[in-house]
């Protein structure tokens, strides 16, 4: 009897899967009333072209391939076949990731720079995979349509956002949201859902994600494997450096410190990271010598590093040390086309007196 039930269940799953695959290429959820998948895919391609035109992609093919491998590893064979599963990195300090219905996962530099091991990456990837394979974009569009068809004055149950959010009643026409966002008009109907799925969909993506993470062996965190961690960090070098630069520019020294520490922990002698560390000290305490040792380390790694020479020169000059002339002089010699060459030459006039 038990064996019969298992067989029946297996048969039912196979039939459902077959039907789903049959229906998916045309529309999602019911004949002419559904959402045309090819149209969504076309919008996804359009959005990618726009991102490209906007210069928003962070070009790091190796890292994108690595992230893509993790995404593919977490997908089922039929999902790999149906979707073009891949990852693109967006330049943005915002900590975020979202998925396009065609299988592309977009992840920001702000998020990537904060991830510390492969399990965390997998958690992000599998969550977005959940949105893709559960058709959350199409289902959100249909839900929005249902809401729009309700009388405008009728209260509509609003979306719940965040873990502790309470259900709220929204008194507005659903279309107003689409038009106020401007995204619907622009053609990327799914884009607004990428950032704003209903809480139920987020839970569904998490639920699928946890099961897939366990199946993929990611629940056994290899955090103690130092070699794996070094390789992991090396792959993320460019992204972390990029975000550390932003954090420093924004004066977010706590974040900058954390990111630079991660760069330095890789153990490679790197002048860019050491110079950033020195710059941070200089910005925090402009008239101290705390920055100098970092610049010295940077110049030991790369004696001709323009950034380190310039920063070292500025550091010494700001506290009236004659050493400034030595470092600014070296910068002047090797960086005739340097960005700050005119400023340096002006400062060097003081050395000649």
């Amino acid at each position, binding site marked *: 009897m038990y064996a019969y039930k298992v067989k029946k269940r297996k048969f039912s799953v196979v039939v459902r899967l077959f039907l789903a695959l049959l229906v998916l290429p045309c529309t999602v959820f019911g004949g002419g009333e559904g959402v045309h998948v090819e149209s969504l895919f076309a919008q996804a391609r359009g959005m990618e072209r726009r991102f490209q035109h906007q210069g*928003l992609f962070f070009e790091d093919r190796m890292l994108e391939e690595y992230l893509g491998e993790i995404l593919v590893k977490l997908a089922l064979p039929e999902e790999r076949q149906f979707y073009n599963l891949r990852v693109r990195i967006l330049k943005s*300090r915002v900590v975020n990731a979202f998925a396009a219905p065609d299988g592309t996962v977009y992840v920001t530099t702000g998020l990537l720079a904060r991830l510390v091991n492969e399990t965390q990456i997998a958690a992000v990837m599998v969550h977005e995979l959940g949105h893709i394979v559960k058709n959350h974009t199409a289902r959100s569009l249909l839900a929005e349509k249902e809401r729009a068809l309700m009388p405008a004055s009728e209260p509509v149950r609003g979306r719940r956002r965040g873990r502790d959010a309470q259900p709220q009643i929204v008194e507005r026409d659903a279309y107003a949201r689409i038009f106020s966002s401007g995204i619907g008009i622009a053609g990327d109907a799914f884009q607004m859902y990428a950032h704003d799925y209903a809480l139920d969909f987020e839970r569904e993506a998490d639920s699928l994600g946890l099961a897939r993470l366990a199946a993929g062996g990611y629940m056994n965190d290899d955090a103690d494997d130092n070699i794996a961690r070094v390789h992991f960090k090396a792959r993320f070098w460019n992204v972390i450096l990029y975000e550390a630069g932003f954090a420093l*520019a*924004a*004066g977010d020294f706590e974040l900058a410190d954390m990111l630079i520490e991660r760069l330095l922990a890789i153990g490679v002698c790197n002048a860019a990271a050491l110079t950033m560390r020195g710059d941070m000290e200089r910005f925090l305490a402009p008239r101290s010598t705390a920055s100098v040792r970092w610049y010295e380390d940077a110049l030991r790694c790369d004696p001709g590093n323009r950034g380190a020479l310039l920063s070292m020169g*500025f550091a010494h*000059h700001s506290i009236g040390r004659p050493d400034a002339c030595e470092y600014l002089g070296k910068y002047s010699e090797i960086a005739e086309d340097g960005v700050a060459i005119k*400023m340096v030459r002006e400062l060097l006039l003081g050395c000649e007196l």
Partner: protein
Amino acid sequence: MRLRNISLMAVAVGIALFAGCGGPASWQIAQPGHNKFPGRLGFSVDIPENWMTFADQPSRTLLLSRHSMLMDLVQITRYPLPASFGYTNRTINAHMKTYEVAEVVIGNLRASSGTIDVAIEELAPYIIGGREGFRIFGRYGMENGLFRRFLIYGFIHDGKYYTELSLYALEDYYFNAVVGDFTALVDSFRF
């Protein structure tokens, strides 16, 4: 009779407000021969002909544009020290060296949410209104896929203020079309 007096007063007050006593500030177009911006904001500059100006007294800012703000925008602002900005937590203080002030300005531009790939092409010293300052030249991308060029002049003065004169203009056509007027305006800057 009493009611009539009250309504006349209301009309008079309305006209007075509309005439400029309490009305909103508006853009003005510089006319030939009347292009000197008086020192209401603590400085004076020669406004190039056909440029629009908008004096924002509360924020100590003079805005100018030749074609429209989306195409080209000049901003002259006097910040009391310590000067803070919208996108960076770093501030400009009275004791800072010129290059340190420039580093804060560049940091604010890099950290801005509206800029992509800020590239500095030149950081140079510059004398503005008789004060030692700097000049930063560069470009950045925007989310609409277009690029802007910028030219920023800044200096600390009287130990109390940081004044900045900046031009932001679309790279295609507009920057080259207005940069000459802008540099002439900078050279005309006086307290």
